[in-house]
């Protein structure tokens, strides 16, 4: 039987002693990392893959029950880390990808030594003492839109997520998104937006670097501040970018932070 790594289109590249594992966000696949890849490859051993349901033929790996929670994806990630021998790796995740890394790290403290979260959120819903950014009614509207006409919904949703008037990025995001089977995309969006990892987050034992765009329709800066206050060892860089996908729209701004936060690590290694 093929390994989980193979089945999730796993790829290893780059040179370096330390392993960096890249976990993409919703609607994307591993190609979303293209802008950061040269920087990573010249410094680290880079492990990339597509989460179940994503990338070309992603539905082949997707099980609606198993992947009905972040933990199904976290188990996939733990299996991959095991398969590629990535002990003490740095995990860089975007959006939901970063929260899957959190779940995996809490489940198994040994595998991940550091997490970089780009525009991550433990909970998208507003609560009494927490501003996730969304009301349930808004999310229900989003699910309805996705269910009714996926293409039309995407035409409105993608420019909002990208957040900057960059047609190439919008087209690229659409290309990645439309690889997903619409029912899986809906199930996954629902799983993500309804998830609540706020009680899990404080149990992280590894250091976390938070990268939060200044203006992001999916994650308010308040969420990043909340996470910084709840995680034992966390740093936060609010980067001067707009949109939820800064690693695609503004890779230089991300690299700027990574240089500062990660360089000491691999130089020491």
């Amino acid at each position, binding site marked *: 039987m093929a390994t989980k790594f193979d089945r999730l289109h796993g790829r290893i590249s780059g040179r370096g002693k330390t392993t960096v594992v890249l976990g993409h966000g919703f609607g994307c696949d591993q190609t979303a990392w293209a802008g950061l890849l040269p920087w990573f490859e010249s410094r680290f051993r880079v492990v990339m893959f597509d989460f179940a349901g994503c990338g070309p033929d992603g539905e082949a790996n997707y099980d609606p029950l198993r992947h*009905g929670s972040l933990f199904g994806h976290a188990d996939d990630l733990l299996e991959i880390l095991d398969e590629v021998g990535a002990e003490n790796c740095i995990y860089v995740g975007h959006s939901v990808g970063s929260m899957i890394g959190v779940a995996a790290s809490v489940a198994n403290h040994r595998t991940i030594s550091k997490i970089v979260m780009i525009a991550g959120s433990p909970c998208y819903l507003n609560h009494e003492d927490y501003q996730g950014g969304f009301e349930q009614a808004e999310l229900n509207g989003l699910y309805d839109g996705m269910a009714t006409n996926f293409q039309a919904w995407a035409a409105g949703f993608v420019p909002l997520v990208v957040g900057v008037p960059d047609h190439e990025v919008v087209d690229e995001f659409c290309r990645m998104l439309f690889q997903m089977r619409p029912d899986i995309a809906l199930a996954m969006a629902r799983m993500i937006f309804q998830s609540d990892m706020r009680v899990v987050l404080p149990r992280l034992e590894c250091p976390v670097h938070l990268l939060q765009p200044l203006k992001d329709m999916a994650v308010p800066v308040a969420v990043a501040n909340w996470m910084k206050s709840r995680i034992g060892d966390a740093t936060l860089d609010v980067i001067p970018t707009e949109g939820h996908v800064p690693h695609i729209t503004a890779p230089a701004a991300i690299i700027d932070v990574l240089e500062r936060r990660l360089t000491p690590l691999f130089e020491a290694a």
Partner: protein
Amino acid sequence: MPPLAAASPQTPIPQTPQAEPAGISNDGLDALVNFARRAAGADVLLAFEAGDDGLAKPLSASPKIDFMPFGKLAPMLHAADWSQGPLAAEMFNLPSTIQVLLDRPARELWFLPAPVPEARFSGMLFIWLSNPPPVCECSFRLGMRDQVGMLAPVFSQMLIDRGTILRKRQAMQRFQDLFGSVPNGVVIIEGHGQSGLINAQMAMLFAMSAGEKTVSEIAEAMRALRERCINAEFLTELYRPLQRALDLELRAVWDLGHLKLEVETHPILGNGRNGRIWLFHDVTAQHIVDENLRKLAATDALTGLWNRRQFFAAGEALLAEQDASGSEPVAALMLDIDYFKAINDRYGHQAGDEVLREISARLKSMLRHQDQLSRLGGEEFAVLLSGLSAPGVVEIAERLRQAAASAPVSTADGDIEVRISIGVTQRRGDESLVMLLQRADKALYAAKAGGRNRVICDLLADLV
């Protein structure tokens, strides 16, 4: 779904297709799982169901926590040897959903397999956490722990029962869907004869709500519907034996005038003791179609008169009626439009058709309803008259001839003068229809030969 049910706010929308169908009580399972955990002295106990795909679906947990479905682990647990007691947790990769639930790392695991058909990797997973608080290792507790394994068959049986309930419910759901959506009215009388079910279609016919009814309610509704039928008496007689013969199968049309129902009833699975099913099928539309087809088959498309086939069928019946009643002999009139070929040649076939239609209408208007005017083919018509004496027959024949010639037929291609010739006969004794018509034909031939536009009679007695 929050990882710790008690610790975080509820989200209103379920994220996963629910593994647990709503409505199945988990109380028994929860109690068993609670008891087993306490008896074993474990910190956490997770009960799950897992089939061939290895995906473990949560059933119950003690303490009560929500864990999500996970893969891989269940088959590994089944493969391990648990006969020597708990094994180190490091030997297994615990799924993240479980790990995240535990507030301390797992130290030891013990697994109680409960394989059931269709879910062979099911079982109960006992978890001991690291840094345990001191526990009293009295002989009673140890004795309890050693006996926990005995709960496996109970757990298995619970899973089987649960599966059976689920399947039954699914079957029932499927039945309900079918029962509600078939276009037929359906009544099911239960075997014990106390109650029955009627579906939505039937409920409309009965003007009551669908669902379970007492047998007397259903019988009353059915009797009321039957008594409104035009053929109520027939139906009452037909169904009378049902009171004694449980295994009878009957099919009949309930004729409500505007509505015709084909009603079939038979015992369930061929045995009246299983109950009885009534199927009501609306055949009104079918009846209308049949009726139309019958008309089409009997009439001439151009003129709307009877065709040759219907003429002979009805003619035979008329002769038989005359034989039975001994009334006046049936008279036969053969009619033919004079020089019809010339009309066609000169004015065209369309005009010819108009002439045929107009002459048909004129002839028909001169006849009584029961007189059987038919178009036998081409420009040839025939009439059978009953109950008339010879002078009456001749008078009618003459009226028909005059009616045809009364005025030109106006067509799109011009006004056309039309004349007809008529041969008249009366039936002799028990003469056959064919013979009667042959003689009428001869008389018609004579009318033609005599110069056309006239009536020639071959009657029983010479008219003065």
